[in-house]
């Protein structure tokens, strides 16, 4: 299990390949990455703020919960903060399991919890200034299925 919170950009493909290469014994790897949407060209960039004292422990708690629920060989969470341009990778998760059902379910669980329980806040920078992204009710609802 690896949790990384960083300002630097990262190579999603290289991270995914390295993760799969070290997932010995696993038969399935699921990866997901989140990108900065450009909203049809209206978005100039994004700024992500986080709570340094809490981010790492919150992500580790979410990761530990996923491990308790599914049989996982390994997991990876990378999440960036700071300024980002449209199209850039914001974050990724990867899960490795013996069979795909566990890997898919755990990846979805990690994403649902990351959205609403990890202390990150997105600010969109557009032509008309900056706006904090509002949390969506659907994201909170998504937690209930687990």
């Amino acid at each position, binding site marked *: 299990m690896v949790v990384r919170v960083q300002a630097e950009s990262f190579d999603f493909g290289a991270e995914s390949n390295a993760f799969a290469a070290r997932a010995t014994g696993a038969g399935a790897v699921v990866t997901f990455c989140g990108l900065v949407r450009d909203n049809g060209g209206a978005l100039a960039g994004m700024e992500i703020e986080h709570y340094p004292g809490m981010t790492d422990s919150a992500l580790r708690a979410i990761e530990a919960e996923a491990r308790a629920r599914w049989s996982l060989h390994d997991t990876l969470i990378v999440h960036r903060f700071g300024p980002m341009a449209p199209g850039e990778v914001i974050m990724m998760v990867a899960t490795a399991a013996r069979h795909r059902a566990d890997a898919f379910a755990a990846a979805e669980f990690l994403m649902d919890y990351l959205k*609403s329980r990890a202390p990150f806040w997105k600010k969109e920078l557009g032509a008309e200034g900056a706006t904090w992204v509002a949390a969506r009710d659907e994201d909170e609802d998504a937690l209930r299925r687990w």
Partner: protein
Amino acid sequence: MTLTVLYFAWLRERIGHPRESVDTEATTVAELVAELIARDERYAFTFSDLRAVRVALDQQLAEFDAPLAGVREVAFFPPMTGG
């Protein structure tokens, strides 16, 4: 009791600073919020709708009726938007 109080995202912008040291007799988060609101307009504006505010005590999510005994760091922020 002296608490370190942190603000994030739009709460930080409205209050005007990211952290402060607060001397308080409050026994719960709700009492602390009431003390802050009584300070001035910025706090009253920031905490005018608590449905839009989340709180963490020593880096753990908590409710507004949670006790402050033994707590050192209180953080206020909007619902999180990670991922």
